[in-house]
């Protein structure tokens, strides 16, 4: 069993996202440790990209903040290397394909593997283009996480039956960011996925309250929260670690209430 799949053995999984280096490398390291302590079963670490086309304003602004401070892929790798020595919570990278492509797939994935990364989530890498990356990732035991969207329809079974690590079920059309209402029929999509694979499914995009975590935790194996955490960092800066801990703790507690 992959390290990612173990993250789904502790009840419904809570997956938190953070942009690496936000508000600065040191505080970021502290925030990620607090996310682990607060109850994250898996942590997505965003490597900043200049043009994050799947992100809403909160995460996009975090990318801008971090890049303007000179955070690079190498600095993010070093950060993850230090974190992996302090916690067993699995880490996955979330970034855009060009960040890996320009670095070189082999060089990127070998370094990522050495610093303790278990998977990568690449929003601009659909199923049709996945092979060029996954063939290299396999060599290093890194899972390339597949995304399934509300518009995937007949593609669900093809994507799900070839999935590894976990499946990222996108809750809504549009970009990342907090939503008060999610209308997609996630139950049927989850069922369609479950009919072809045992790979765990986590729902993300728009989730930010404990009530939503419970609602979607019922449907899937876990929930993913990004913008709500990044928003706390945006507002509190260096004082964010404790607030992030409280938030993560409240979300994981809500998930624990699910039988």
């Amino acid at each position, binding site marked *: 069993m992959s390290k990612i799949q173990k993250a789904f053995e502790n009840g419904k999984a809570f997956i938190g996202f953070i942009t690496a280096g936000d508000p600065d490398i040191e505080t970021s390291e502290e925030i990620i440790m607090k996310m682990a302590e607060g109850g994250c079963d898996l942590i997505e670490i965003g490597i900043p*990209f*200049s*043009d994050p*086309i*799947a992100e809403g304003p909160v995460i*996009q602004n975090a990318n*801008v903040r971090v*890049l303007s401070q000179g955070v*690079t*892929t*190498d600095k993010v790798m070093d950060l993850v290397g230090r974190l992996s020595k302090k916690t067993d919570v699995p880490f996955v990278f979330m970034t855009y*394909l*060009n*960040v*890996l*492509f*320009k*670095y070189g797939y082999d060089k990127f994935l070998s370094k990522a593997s050495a610093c303790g990364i278990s998977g990568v989530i690449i*929003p*601009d*890498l*659909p*199923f*049709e*283009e996945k*092979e*060029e990356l996954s063939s290299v990732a396999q060599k290093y035991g890194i899972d390339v996480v*597949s*995304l*399934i*969207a*509300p*518009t*995937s*329809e007949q*593609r669900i079974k093809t*994507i799900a039956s070839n999935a590894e690590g976990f499946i990222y079920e*996108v809750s809504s*059309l*549009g*970009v990342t960011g907090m939503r008060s209402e999610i209308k997609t029929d996630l139950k049927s999509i989850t069922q369609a996925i479950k009919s072809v694979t045992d790979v765990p499914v986590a729902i993300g995009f728009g989730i930010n309250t404990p009530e939503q975590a419970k609602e979607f935790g019922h449907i899937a194996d876990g929930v993913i929260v990004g913008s709500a955490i990044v928003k706390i960092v945006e507002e509190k800066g260096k004082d964010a670690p404790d607030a992030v801990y409280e938030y993560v703790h409240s979300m994981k507690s809500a998930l624990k209430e699910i039988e």
Partner: protein
Amino acid sequence: MSKGRYGIHGGQYIPETLMNEIIELEKAYEFYKNDKDFCEELDRLNREYAGRPSLLYYAEKMTKDLGGAKIYLKREDLNHTGSHKINNVLGQCLLAKKLGKKRVIAETGAGQHGVATATAAALMGLECEIFMGKEDTERQALNCYRMELLGAKVHPVTSGTMTLKDAVNEAMKEWVSRVDDTLYVLGSVMGPHPYPMIVRDFQSVISREAREQILEYEGKLPSAVVACVGGGSNAMGAFYNFINDDEVRLIGCEAAGKGVDTALNAATIANGSLGVFHGMKSYFCQNEFGQIAPVYSISAGLDYPGIGPEHAHLHDIGRAEYVPITDDEAVSAFEYIARTEGIICAIESAHAVAHVMKIAPKMSKDDIIIVCLSGRGDKDVASIARYRGVEISE
């Protein structure tokens, strides 16, 4: 490896949310491009609405003045809406109607594609929203207001460098949010497959006509076809039907801004490297970590950090050449063609004219150059005046 490849370039690097839509678009296009009614309708619009075929004009004064190759101008500036962009939008908006879409969105740099899309949308009864970098809404204020007159809503984009690249980002985000009733009418031979193919096919009318016209006027093919390149749609259209004519040199002119050796340029072939962005694998201006570079050109339409995948391939195999042209050279060419031929062309097209001014004198009188005059320059008059330190109020 997916469909839509030009050598190693192209592909479909887009979010899963858009994949079904892109597949449907490709299916619809493959069907309608051979559908008699669709082709007749498009042909009628091209002739009766856009004013095609566009003239191939012998620039006699310019030819004599430069003293070398015979120069012909392919007058895309005379099309309705004032540029080649109408060729593509009429096709894509017709497709949108066939797909049952109620709404179209588009990015625009100089505003030419935005104006063309707003025009076609008005004609065909589609809602229209245009994404334009805030910096471009300021340097192309006239086009901005033209779009509003045509009933479109213009969204000034304030993220990133606030130019064409960011307008594409925002248009993509909007499409992901409303993929059901909306078609993204992409303006250049870029983005995920099938866009580079669709836009190239609709623009290839330029070289189809030019090839027939030059054979009729001169009884032979040109020695060179010259066009400006941002994403590369007018160049692809001007090159396409000459690609198999090995004796015809194909020359794309990139925006070198303040110079290829400075930080302020948008010369992708000169300075870019292989990458994946905006749905395609191609060449991009970027740093060592794959962060897309902030690019610059006086021309909002060429101010883009990438190039269409088919151009990247034509470069790789040596079939087309790409040369950098600076702001200074383009502005001088803009003024030169106005005085010499009485034609105020777009500052984008002036990049191609600038290169013709360099090569024509060195060529023989038996040589022929066709230069694609992709657009008219009314929109640029105020910014050229500013460039020359002249204060005018629009």
